[in-house]
């Protein structure tokens, strides 16, 4: 699964993208990975799957071929 990081999230993860092979591709696995590796909780970011913002409170499917983006609102101006 390709994961892209934007804005402050990329500063937290220390990279703008990475490819991770999960044993099981699911929202739960992805959220668990972000929490464990970067201490990112669901309240810290928004998640897009294949450039479509996803509602993480819903049961959403993620495939290994999907491109996931982790982003957040920007404050500056």
């Amino acid at each position, binding site marked *: 699964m390709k994961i892209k990081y934007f804005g402050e999230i990329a500063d937290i993860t220390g990279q703008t993208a990475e490819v991770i092979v999960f044993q099981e591709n699911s929202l739960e696995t992805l959220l668990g990975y972000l929490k464990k590796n970067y201490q990112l909780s669901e309240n810290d970011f928004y998640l897009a799957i294949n450039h479509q*913002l996803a509602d993480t409170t819903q049961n959403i499917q993620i495939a290994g071929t999907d491109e996931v983006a982790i982003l957040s609102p920007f*404050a*500056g101006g």
Partner: protein
Amino acid sequence: MNEKRHIRQIALPQVGIVGQEKLERARVLVVGAGGLGNAVLPYLASSGIGTIGILDGDKIDLTNLHRQVLFSELELGKSKAIVASQKLSIQFPEIAITPYDSFLTGENALDLFLNYDLVIDATDSIDARYLINDACIVTKKPFVHASIYRFQFQVAIFNAKGSGTYRCLYPNAPSSSQSCEEAGVMPSTVAMAGLYQANEVFKYILQVGDLQTNSILLVDTLSNNHNHFSFKNRNQEHINPSFFERTYKSILQISINDVDKNGFFLDVRNEEELPILELENSRQIPISLLQKGMELIPKNQPVYLFCQSGIRSRKAYWILKESGWANLHCLAENAPEISEIQHRILR
């Protein structure tokens, strides 16, 4: 209209005389005369947009000058809105520019927005963006958003002809996010974001091209990558005038030392909560029973609300306000503090 000044854009088939007249009739309010405002304003004005409002309560600081290019060292300490308005009026004397030397608040947002066709979000805080969004929903105005984080920026137009809003994209504010002052920014990044905003304004007014609706454009200026993230409309019916008032307008607060002697004290705590207070002209109606017990609250004298910490009294304030009580105040002090100074009131 000075046709000659705008002849090069009138020459575009997508503009023409009809388009130029649309620009001339347009009324655009720019909220924020910082980095984004300085980028978007000269191009809105130069295109011939007939009426422009500039809202900013901030003063010009030396650290602004690298990206806020309308300002110079001669104007340090002066109002950003007024100086920007003066400079643009000299350069573009045919358009009407109104400066507002104040910050956007829940008190001024709705009245201001009603005077314009479109709002530009050129602010630098997430809270201001939610305020703009909610005021635009209430006043049914579209707004063009841009925001920056270091070398990246986001742009979209929200609430345009039924399109999604900022809350459809980002329902809640993140736990923390940095402004340009904290994170740092290059002048070119903020200028590019501002020009994307100006371009979105032109497309909206001229009704040409595809608007950045229901999709946010995220540009990374280091890689030159453009990313579009689409989002769905969410029900925003709850963002109505009453929600706006409850969320953004300040409540009338008064110290118990300054209350009217003929006032009525309303304790909205539950009966079992301590300390028990013995106040003259008072009654206890728990917040959960307020709707049922309203007839016990006088309308012809000031009503002073309190609870244990001030949260429930604020809630009660809005319940009563919406039910027709006008002379309402939340007490600055709540039960624990009132208990301490009770003897003074009874005296």
